[in-house]
């Protein structure tokens, strides 16, 4: 296997993990908009309890993706940064206020007004970040990004990223985050023995899930109209993954109905992951559509091999640490006196 393909797979894996875990954290923040109106303390506690210990770690997948991208595919990184300076900056604003809003809220105990302010900021920012990330993904997928084969951007910074496909993907990403969060929260509510909350979240998960199914079907139509290159890739190469995603998505809904929440969460994760992998395989070997490929934009091989070594060595520390974190907070029943 060529080193750029290995690094490309690492990038894909990190992006997937960011979507699954970082995305669920964003989703929980978006649901907070809902709970803010109903102001149900118990509900809120479950929500914050679920993201508290893990959001820092989940967030770092994004940093990792950025770093690996610029180190391994500098030309693509440079082109993407030029093309998406505005939406990327908006993503950044979202991420900053999500993180800051979360801790400021968590630790401004006993100060109603301030806490309310940070909570609102946290919720709004949680929606903004995936929205603009989705917009970037949509523009890329449609092949409208105006990055030429030499990696030079020659479009209009201000308006190019606002296409129909981009808007669609933006909303789709937000919806996906909400669905992931709702399914995970259902599972966690059951885990901590909250019968009532489990039902509330199950209902929310079902409602969002049905919507996502409809959106996904519309999405395929959208892709075939707006992104012919990608549609071709889907039809010829990536169809097994698209099919798998659809099956897992449907499966997750059924499992929710049958109240099998842990398998439902697994199915949801597979459905989401297959969207990323389907997309990646459909456009391989292009990294910055429409033209720029992995091989065109890669760093010298010596760098790629050094990075692969670093990733392998890092994984030895990372794997067990992550396992410990998730074991402690996601697999053992929680009690409320953790703070």
């Amino acid at each position, binding site marked *: 296997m060529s080193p750029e393909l290995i690094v490309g797979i690492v990038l894909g894996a990190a992006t997937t993990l960011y979507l699954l875990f970082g995305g669920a954290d964003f989703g929980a923040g978006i649901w907070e908009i809902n709970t803010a109106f109903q102001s149900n303390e118990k509900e809120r506690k479950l929500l914050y309890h679920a993201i*508290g*210990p*893990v959001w*820092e*770690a989940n*967030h*770092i997948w994004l*940093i990792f993706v*950025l*770093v*690996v991208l*610029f*180190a*391994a595919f*500098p*030309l693509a*990184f*440079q082109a*993407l*940064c*030029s093309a998406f*300076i*505005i939406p*990327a*900056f908006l993503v*950044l*604003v979202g*991420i*900053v*206020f999500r*993180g*800051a809003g*979360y*801790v*400021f809220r968590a*630790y*401004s*105990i*006993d100060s109603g007004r*301030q806490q309310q302010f940070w909570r609102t900021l946290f919720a709004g920012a949680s929606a903004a970040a995936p929205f603009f990330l989705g917009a970037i993904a949509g523009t890329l997928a449609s092949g409208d990004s105006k990055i030429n084969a030499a990696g030079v951007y020659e479009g209009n*910074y*201000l308006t190019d990223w606002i296409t129909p496909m981009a808007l669609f993907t933006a909303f789709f990403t937000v919806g996906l985050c909400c669905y992931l969060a709702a399914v995970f929260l259902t599972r966690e509510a059951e885990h901590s023995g909250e019968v009532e909350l489990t039902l509330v979240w199950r209902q929310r998960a079902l409602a969002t899930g049905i919507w996502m199914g409809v959106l996904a079907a519309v999405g395929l139509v959208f892709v075939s109209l707006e992104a012919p290159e990608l549609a071709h890739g889907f039809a010829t190469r990536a169809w097994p993954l698209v099919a798998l995603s659809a099956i897992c998505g449907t499966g997750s809904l059924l499992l929710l109905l049958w109240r099998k929440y842990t398998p439902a969460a697994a199915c949801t994760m597979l459905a989401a992951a297959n969207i990323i992998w389907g997309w990646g395989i459909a456009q391989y070997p292009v990294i910055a559509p429409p033209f720029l490929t992995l091989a065109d934009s890669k*760093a010298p091989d*010596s*760098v790629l091999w*050094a*990075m692969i070594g*670093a*990733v392998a060595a*890092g994984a030895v520390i*990372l794997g067990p*640490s*992550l396992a410990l*974190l998730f074991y*402690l*907070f996601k697999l*053992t029943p929680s*009690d409320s*006196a*953790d703070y």
Partner: protein
Amino acid sequence: MHGARHLTVGHLMMLLADSANLLPARLQMAFTLGFHIIFACIGMGLPILIVLAEWLSLRNGDPVWRTLAKRWSKGFAVLFAVGAVSGTVLSFELGLLWPEFMGKFGPVVGLPFTLEGFAFFTEGIFVGIYLYGWNRLAPFHHWLCGLPIALAGTMSAWFVVTTNSFMNCPQGFQLDADGKLLDVQPWTAMLNPATGAQTTHMIVAAYMVTGFLVASFYAWEILRGRNGLYQRRALTLGVLLGGFFALVQGPVGHWAGHVVAVTQPIKLAAMEGQWETETYAPLRIGGIPDPETKTTPYAIEIPGMLSVLAYDNPAAEVQGLNAFPEDLHPPTPIVHVAFQIMVGIGTLLIFIGLWSGYLLKWGKSAWHERRWWLLTLLASGPLTVLAMEAGWTVTEVGRQPWIVQGFLRTKDAVTQAPGVWFIFAVTMSIYLVLTVGCISVLRILAKQPMPEDADVA
């Protein structure tokens, strides 16, 4: 003062003439880095104090130490999150503001950034476990989970500073005729001659910043009459950390200076306001270099000392700025003044460290009677931060006009996208919200009542 005026007007004009984006991009980079680094320093130093306090509580079962560890870890959670989000801003900014730099040298500096990513991961994971695991883990295991936080924080600083030392002292690659990279050796680039001194100096600085900031905060509390065992112990731990590393920083700073002399002679000349090449070069204390007349008036000169400091030999020749073409001179007054500030404060902190050590060990008077000492400590925290920021000003401004010494000029690295001033303005408002939020939440945390057994006067 003539030099300074010349600099501000002349330098600004030059900047504006270069590219409309250069000035806002540099201002934004300097501001966001200067902001992040304060939180990064605390992110390295505070875990050490927390782990120490928890260890003391485990050893002698004293609830005051445990209260300290618990309360500090809440403050740490807030500061760490601000460090994390401001660091994320930086990762984006490198690409958004300096696409040429990243496009060209990204592969060379990618390895340390990748390794840093793993350090962040370890840190983020164990921060989660530590903060939320007080009741889930056995006390000793909980303490163990604090250690990787301290270690990983320091490792991330080490990795990121190797990137900066590469910018100062680039090696480990070749360029072909079109300026494309050939033959990159990432490990050689990472372990360049400036790496050892710069990383050590930075990490020691971070421990000093944390130690003196903690001492500063509790000196304020005690001065306001909150003179309990809790505050006195907190202050003692802070002063010990800061004071010890202040002593270490003296020789390490000398090492850093020596490395600059060998690898970046122009920067050294600017730091010292040295215009002529001479043997027995004097060390200048104070003074403001004047690029017009090429002199450094108002300085106290100690003959031969600069040659000694830079090369351990009074007869050694030190190159002056005049030996280099004028368009390679950095803004000399800024570099020189910043250097004076850093070294001046560094020297002062050594004395504060020694004085504190003496009082803590042999002092006879009661704590609240040591007013002058407490007032000095109150000032020490902000001063340490100032020294650290001044040090970065020396490093970064002293490298100008280069972003990668000798290979890429700053003006050639800046983004061509429009609206950088607008982004700068938005960034400033975001950081304002972050700062206000952080301070107000920390105040709320500080005001929370102490548990009964913590003996608070």
